[in-house]
């Protein structure tokens, strides 16, 4: 699948922002006044930046509001509705802490649950697709949720929470990669099933339908960079999990937190790039690709 920068930025940034807001909503930290303003500002900022980036991916961004209508059937629509609800429901809690120094736990808790539901909805956009066997697996929501919780824990400066969440992120990432490598074979799809010509013999593409490229090949048969997948997996794992865990262990205060946060974000961007670039769509079989 094509690793569109806008979607990578969207999932990584809004995941981080929603993870932070989850902890703030549950009251893992209860900042007041200016520090509350900065923390909630960071959470809202990251989430909204991510959502804005996702709108850039649309062919007709000016119609984006229509995406709130089909929440009964579409995970993409649910994600939009839940994200908006999460940010709205959390607002009294945030405003209470910023302006009056008082928490509104009910709004905070409800908002935090909605933040988690939003992350789940984002992951289900990918996990629901039978056409992309690597995504169509429980590790997809697991990676999205653990990534948001680990990133959020780093941003809340709760070192013990981060040290708890980072190993889980490492584990789910590794499982997503290792189990994911087997998913396409397990789906059982091949040029023979795609064309239905299997009973006649082995099927090979003789001529593509057109001499030029097309939308389908660019969007769903992206094969560039898979050569470096192992190196990128190692880099993502080190940056997203290992370095933040070491930094927070050595310098639990601000000097460790800021580089840990940046390292984690860099690693997650690499992991998200791989999430898309490695994923094979069954449609590619018609073009002799995977």
């Amino acid at each position: 699948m094509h690793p569109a920068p806008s979607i990578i930025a969207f999932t990584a940034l809004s995941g981080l922002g929603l993870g932070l807001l989850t902890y703030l909503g549950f009251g893992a930290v209860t900042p007041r006044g200016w520090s509350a303003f900065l923390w909630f500002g960071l959470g809202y900022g990251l989430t909204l930046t991510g959502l804005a980036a996702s709108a850039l991916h649309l062919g007709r961004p000016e119609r984006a509001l229509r995406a709130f209508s089909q929440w009964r059937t579409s995970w993409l629509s649910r994600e939009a509705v839940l994200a908006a609800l999460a940010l709205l429901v959390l607002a009294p809690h945030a405003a209470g802490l910023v302006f009056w120094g008082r928490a509104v736990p009910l709004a905070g808790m409800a908002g935090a649950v909605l933040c988690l539901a939003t992350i789940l909805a984002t992951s289900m956009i990918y996990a629901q697709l039978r056409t992309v066997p690597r995504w169509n697996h429980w590790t997809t929501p697991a990676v999205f949720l653990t990534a948001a919780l680990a990133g959020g824990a780093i941003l809340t400066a709760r070192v013990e929470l981060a040290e708890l969440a980072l190993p889980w992120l490492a584990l789910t990432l590794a499982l997503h990669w290792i189990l994911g490598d087997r998913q396409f074979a397990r789906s059982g799809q091949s040029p023979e099933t795609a064309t239905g010509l299997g009973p006649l013999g082995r099927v090979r593409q003789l001529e593509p339908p057109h001499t030029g490229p097309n939308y389908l090949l660019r969007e769903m048969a992206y094969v560039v960079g898979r050569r470096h997948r192992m190196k990128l997996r190692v880099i993502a794992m080190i940056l997203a999990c290992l370095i933040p865990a070491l930094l927070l262990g050595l310098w639990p205060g601000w000097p460790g937190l800021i580089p840990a946060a940046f390292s984690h974000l860099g690693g997650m961007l690499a992991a998200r790039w791989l999430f898309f670039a490695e994923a094979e769509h069954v449609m590619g079989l018609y073009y002799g690709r995977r």
Partner: protein
Amino acid sequence: MTALPPPSLKKLGLVIDLDTCVGCHACVIACKGWNTENYGAPLSDLDPYGAEPEGTFLNRVHSYEVTPESGAPVTVHFPKSCLHCEDAPCVPVCPTGASYKRAEDGIVLVNEDACIGCGLCAWACPYGARELDALVGVMKKCTLCVDRIYNEALPERDREPACVRTCPSGARHFGDLGDPESAVSRLVAERGGIDLMPDLKARPVNKYLPPRPRDRLQEAPPDLAQLCEPGTEGLTGFLGWVDRTLSRF
């Protein structure tokens, strides 16, 4: 709502005969022509006269080489467009309700005025049947020529999809696959029509007829050379007289 409608009795679709398709791409051109000049946004081209021409197509013809366990490989031309699936995976994923399946005849369509061009329906389709138009930014797909098949302004013989109307080898058939007595349903039953990637549970309405087994010579003809040599046997008239006269010398 983009929920799928309850299964319709009428299931309009195509039956594509892989035995008779000659890979001429006439259906591709007819489709592009009709759907650029009629319903919805035109199917745009990028760099049409340049070095890397490409464009949006609702129907593309692939060509495959099938190598049997024994014997020579066979070339199979393989036209592919939207299969108007009964459990169309492209419909429920749509966040705006632009992608829908008609309750009355099962045709899967895109309301281009409501499409935001997110591309998720194209991801959900196993068959690569949907293409986002690069210029208009909305999803394009086969409409089963909904603006032809019910169009009373057209002569009756033209009330079928453009690809079917144009096919010179009769490889494309249009009809109601929900009616077991229809010509297309009987064709599917006779020829053992198949679904593409049935495990993905999209339950496509369009069916493909596999190539018939190739016939083989049971015994070699007695004298092949005789069939090729130009002979003068049975020649009559002036040429016969010339032949007979010259043969005497």
